[in-house]
C-alpha cells in the first residue's frame, strides 16, 4: 500500500428525492504513499463524504476510487476486505465506545480483524501509548474518562487496527490547544514509527495543517480547488480565502513580509522566529 486515487468521483445524497444534495463533483486526486495529506475546506464542502467513500461505507454515484490500482467497488462483496486496511476515525469518535474497559474497547477493532490474543495485546498497548492513554486508564470504564481522554481512547481503537491508510476526520475538534497538540502529535508519532503509512487528516484548522500536513487538498463546494504541498498552499492566500478558510495570523504576517522580500514558505511561528532572528543578527 498504498496509492489511493480518486477518479472523477461524484457523490449525491438522497438522489431522486426532494432532499437531493450533491456533495462531491468530479473529484480527482492521488494520495502519496507515506505522506500526511491534509484535506481542508469550509463547513459542508464534502470533507466527511470523502472519508466515508474512502472507507467504502458509501458507494460513489459516479467515478471510481482506486486502491493500489484496483477499483474499491470492483467486487462489492469484498469491500470489507479492503476496509480492513483502512482506519477511519470519525468526527467525535468518543461516542462509539461501548466496552467495559478501555482496553477491551481498543481491542474491538483488532479482534474483528481476527488477530491472536498476543498480537491484540501488543497492538492495544502500542496504540494506547501513541495517543497518551496510560496503563491506569486502560483498566477503567470508558464512561469514567474525561472528554479528551475518551477521544484519545477512541482514536487508539482505530490505530490498534494497524491500518495502512489512516483517515482522521476532525480528530481535534472541540478540544483545547493542549489536547489538540497531544492527539495530532500522537498521530504523527505513529506515522514516524510505522513507515510508509499514509495519513489523510481532515480539518478546517489551517494552524494544525501548517504543523502536521505535508500536502494539502483544498475543497470548495465539493470540487477540488487546489492540491499541492502545504507550503505552496500557504503562499497562495487568495486560494485559501476563496475556499472560505483563514490562514493563521503568523502566515498572514509572513506573507506580508514576503512582499517585502523575506523568503517565502514560512508557515509556523517557530520558523518565523528563526527567520526573524537571522535578519536581526545580520
Amino acid at each position: 500500500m498504498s496509492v489511493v486515487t480518486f477518479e472523477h468521483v461524484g457523490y449525491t445524497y438522497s438522489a431522486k428525492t426532494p432532499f437531493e444534495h450533491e456533495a462531491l463533483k468530479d473529484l480527482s486526486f492521488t494520495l502519496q504513499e507515506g505522506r500526511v495529506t491534509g484535506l481542508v475546506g469550509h463547513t459542508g464542502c464534502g470533507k466527511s463524504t470523502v472519508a466515508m467513500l474512502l472507507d467504502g461505507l458509501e458507494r460513489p454515484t459516479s467515478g471510481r476510487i482506486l486502491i493500489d490500482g484496483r477499483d474499491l467497488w470492483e467486487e462489492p462483496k469484498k469491500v470489507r476486505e479492503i476496509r480492513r486496511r483502512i482506519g477511519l476515525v470519525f468526527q467525535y469518535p468518543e461516542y462509539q465506545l461501548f466496552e467495559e474497559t478501555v482496553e477491551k474497547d481498543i481491542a474491538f477493532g483488532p479482534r474483528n480483524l481476527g488477530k491472536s490474543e498476543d498480537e491484540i495485546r501488543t497492538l492495544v498497548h502500542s496504540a494506547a501509548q501513541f495517543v497518551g492513554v496510560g496503563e491506569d486508564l486502560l483498566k477503567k470504564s470508558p464512561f469514567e474518562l474525561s472528554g479528551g481522554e475518551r477521544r484519545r481512547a477512541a482514536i487508539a481503537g482505530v490505530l490498534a487496527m494497524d491500518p495502512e491508510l489512516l483517515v482522521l476526520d476532525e480528530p481535534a475538534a472541540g478540544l483545547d490547544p493542549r489536547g489538540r497538540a497531544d492527539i495530532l502529535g500522537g498521530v504523527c508519532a505513529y506515522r514516524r514509527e510505522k513507515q510508509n503509512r499514509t495519513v489523510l487528516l481532515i480539518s478546517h484548522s489551517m494552524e494544525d495543517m501548517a504543523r502536521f500536513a505535508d500536502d494539502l487538498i483544498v475543497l470548495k463546494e465539493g470540487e477540488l480547488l487546489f492540491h499541492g504541498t502545504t507550503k505552496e498552499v500557504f503562499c497562495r492566500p487568495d486560494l485559501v480565502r476563496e475556499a472560505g478558510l483563514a490562514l493563521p495570523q503568523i502566515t498572514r504576517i509572513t506573507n506580508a513580509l514576503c512582499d517585502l522580500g523575506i523568503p517565502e514558505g514560512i508557515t509556523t511561528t517557530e520558523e518565523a522566529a528563526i527567520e526573524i532572528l537571522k535578519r536581526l543578527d545580520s
Partner: protein
Amino acid sequence: MLKDVTLGQYFPGQSPLHRLDPRAKILGTILYIVLVFFARSFPAYAALLAALIVLCAVSGISLKLILKGLKPVVFIAAFTAIVNLFWTAGEGAPLVEFWIVRIYPEGIYSAIFMLLRILSLVIGTSVLLTYTTTPMDLTDALERLLKPLKFIGVPVHEFAMMMTIALRFVPTLVEETQKIMNAQKARGADFESGNLIRRVKSLIPVLIPLFISSFRRADDLAIAMECRCYHGGKGRTRMKELHLRFGDVLFLFSFAAFGVLLYFSTPFFASMGFYIK
C-alpha cells in the same frame, strides 16, 4: 436501510387537507374508522371508497407514496383475506370442493371485504392524518381535544409534551444509529453475515453507545428546558393558537352527515339483499 420508514411520516404540502385544522382531522379520522366498520353493504362501501379517493386526490400526495405506505400491512391484509376465504362457511353449495378445502361464495365476499377494510383503514388514516399533519400540530391538537381530562387529574399537557419530544427525536436517533453503525463498521464490525444470534450480538456495540447518548441528550434537553423556565403546563400560553375556521366546521359537518347517511342506509340496502355479514 433505515431511510425507508414511511409509516407515520409527514409529507409537506399546501393542499386543503394540509391546511385543515388538526383537531378537525383527528375527529374526522375517528369518524372515518367508525364508518369503515359500519359500512356493511356494497353501495355503502362504494360510497366510502369514493370518499377515500376524493380525499387522496385532494391531499395531492402521489399514489406511489400512498402505496409505499401500505407495505407494512400487506402481509396482515393477505393473511386475513386468505383465512376468510377458506374458513367462511356458506349456506349454499360450495363453489370449490377439494380435499378439506371448501370455498363458498360468502367466503369470497368476506375475503374481499376484509382486504378492502384493512387497506382503506390504513390509507384513510394516513392520508387524512399522518401524511398531511406535522407531528407538532398533531400533538397540539391532541392536547386541546383531551383538555377536559384535566379535571379528573390527567396531566394532559405533560403527556403531549412527552409525545412531542419523542416524535422530535425519532429522526435524530435514526441518524445517530447510522453514524454509530458506520463507526463500528469502520472498526471491522460485521452486521450482515452470520446466524441470528451472531447478528443480534453484533448490535451490542451499536446499542450501548446509542443508549448512552440518548440518556445524555435527555439530560441536556431537560437542563436546557429548565434554563428557559419551563415548569410544566400550568399557566402556559401558546405561540400558535388553533382556530377553527368555517372550512374546518364545514368539513366536519359534511363528513358527519355522510356518516349518518351511510349508517341509516344500511338497513335499506340490506332489505334489498346487499347485506354482508
